[in-house]
């Protein structure tokens, strides 16, 4: 590893201050095309979903396997704790949260990646704590799925500029609707990626979902213009 370059410390497009908040002014290069496609609205929802999915897949692979390992460690710690007590409602949440922080702290890697994995793990913990989730057997997949979701939101959805008019003059409400339309496809893919990555112990081989087959026209069918 080399030292971070000056450019990496001051990312283009970011507002950077000595001890102030860093606020991102827009999307990274990888996600610009998906955003523009969504704004232009020329493609079907499925096609529109594929471009951000392709960008997301590339981004996840580029981010590497640290989150897979962290998710695994955190899930193991949680499962050990719950099994030792035998009752989810009796878990000491402070201790588990602190253990998660320790796991992240003791692992060397990118701060941002560790934070996104922590967010995912703590979100799963939150759901257990408040009864929205009742089982821990799927913890490794649930945490990794949460991480992929965090990447989607932090790099794409919540990086879309807060402007009165988007690319191609699109109104923010319309863009929100289009994002809402593609999200079921994205979340289904994220679930499959999480299963695959936990199974492989790696994100290297996650794949885009197959394209839906275009229905061939039966020559005898009345297509009724």
């Amino acid at each position: 590893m080399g030292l971070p370059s000056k450019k990496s410390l001051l990312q283009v497009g970011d507002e950077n201050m000595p001890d102030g908040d860093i606020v991102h002014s827009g999307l990274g290069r990888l996600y610009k095309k998906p955003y523009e496609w969504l704004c232009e609205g020329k493609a079907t929802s499925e096609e529109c979903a594929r471009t951000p999915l392709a960008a997301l897949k590339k981004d996840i692979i580029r981010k590497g396997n640290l989150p897979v390992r962290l998710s695994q460690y955190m899930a193991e710690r949680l499962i050990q704790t719950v099994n030792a007590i035998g009752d989810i409602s009796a878990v000491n949440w402070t201790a588990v949260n602190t253990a998660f922080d320790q796991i992240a702290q003791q692992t060397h890697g990118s701060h941002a990646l560790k934070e996104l994995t922590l967010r995912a793990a703590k979100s799963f913990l939150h759901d257990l704590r408040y009864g929205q989730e009742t089982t821990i057997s799927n913890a490794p997949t649930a945490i990794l799925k949460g991480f992929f979701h965090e990447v989607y939101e932090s790099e794409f959805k919540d990086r879309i500029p807060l402007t009165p008019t988007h690319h191609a003059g699109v109104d923010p409400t319309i863009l929100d609707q289009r994002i809402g339309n593609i999200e079921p496809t994205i979340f289904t893919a994220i679930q499959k990626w999480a299963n695959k990555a936990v199974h492989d112990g790696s994100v290297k081989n996650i794949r885009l979902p197959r394209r839906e087959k275009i229905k061939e026209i039966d020559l005898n069918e009345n297509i009724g213009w």
Partner: protein
Amino acid sequence: MEEHYKFDKDYTFTFGPIENGNGSVHVIEHNSGLEDHIGINIFDQDFQYRSSHKFPTVVADLIDLAVSIHASDRLALQSIRYEQTRIHVILPVRVPEVMNSSTFLVKLVNLLGWTTASQWSFEFLKCADSERLIERQGAIPVIPRSCEVALWSGGLDALAGLYARLASSDAESFLLFGTGSNNITYARQKQVYESLKIPYRVDLSRIPIRFTGSNLHRKNKISRARGVVFTLLGSACAYLMGQKTLHVYENGIGAINLPYRKSAVGLEHTRSVHPLTLLQVSGIVSELIGEKFTVYNPFLFWTKAEMCKELAKYEKDDLVALTMSCDSPHRQQPTQCGYCSSCILRKQALAASHIKDKTSYVLPSKNKRTDDVSLHLRHMLDQVSTIQSLLNVSRTPSAQWQGLTKQFPILDDIVDRSASAENLTASEMQQKLIQLYQSYVNEWDNAGSQILANFSDQISGMPLSNRSPITV
């Protein structure tokens, strides 16, 4: 893909004894092989005013530790988005046994990991006799009386907090503590203090840290250890005054500093005076001095506007313009930008507390059309809108809390870890935090239009959030 590292650290900082004039640090950048010697000194004469004649060695070590963290944090390039920087510090101290204990080291490394995003390691060596004058001179004894020691940044929260505490605290006197390596900030701390004109009840102590010969060394742009350094030195000051508590006057919204959107990850929002930072600093100081010591923010459940209302009660509105909030000060007048998040929160607080803001800002007093000056405002409003929608889901505090913590899990951590230190039950603390965010949202509802007027050119015609827009 596994990373393979040529070195097990990126920087090594080997400090000589921390002195008043001839101190230095030897810096090695392992990957580039570059080495440098940089002067680093502390001017601690103000510590001659103290309650005990002898200067406690553990406090001298605490001061040295703070200086070494300040220097290392400034001189090591660090990144939030990319690989963590590994920083190794070698520091001579008077009592290395305590600082080399695993309990102390774990606490210290955790604190710095939490606040700076880097991985730190320390090696404390036994130093020869200290050259620092303050340890060899006798004290100028202060009259023992109850004294509240508080950090003094020269900012608006420090000023408003002081007036609130003057009214509510039992302390007979106040000692305001300032530090830093920036001349402008240092001068401002004195200027604001002198304008208070309460000489018999409020004193000022300032301990600057100075670099020499560092101009050619590329410095870290994001100095996230500032809060840690400030609270460690403030703790030393409080202890020397015979106190076991250091006060930090900071509004709860700014202290907790929740992300505006999901795009803000981890330390992209500073944790300088975060409740969990203060808790960890308390633990480190306690470990070092061998007795319980607390760094306490009495305004954790107050908004900035609520703090400012205390100033209005004292009719001290005119002092506001002397204080500095800006994260991105300009070199020429006016220095405060008016559009970073700290400036916007300041404007919002003054508007909501009905204090006329006489501060000169770059925006709107000068046309500044080259950058997107409404960027921070848009993000802040998006957060306000998110919080508002989470609070509006239900009128039941438990449901509101669930909603808030699903979006911001750190709030559960804060309550879990610091409720007992606040002398509150978890449920009481949750309600206080819900009330804090409710008040903040209400303030934007009532005073937001005044802030938006500054940005009218940049935001006209836009819904201010992609979510349900807040009414302003």
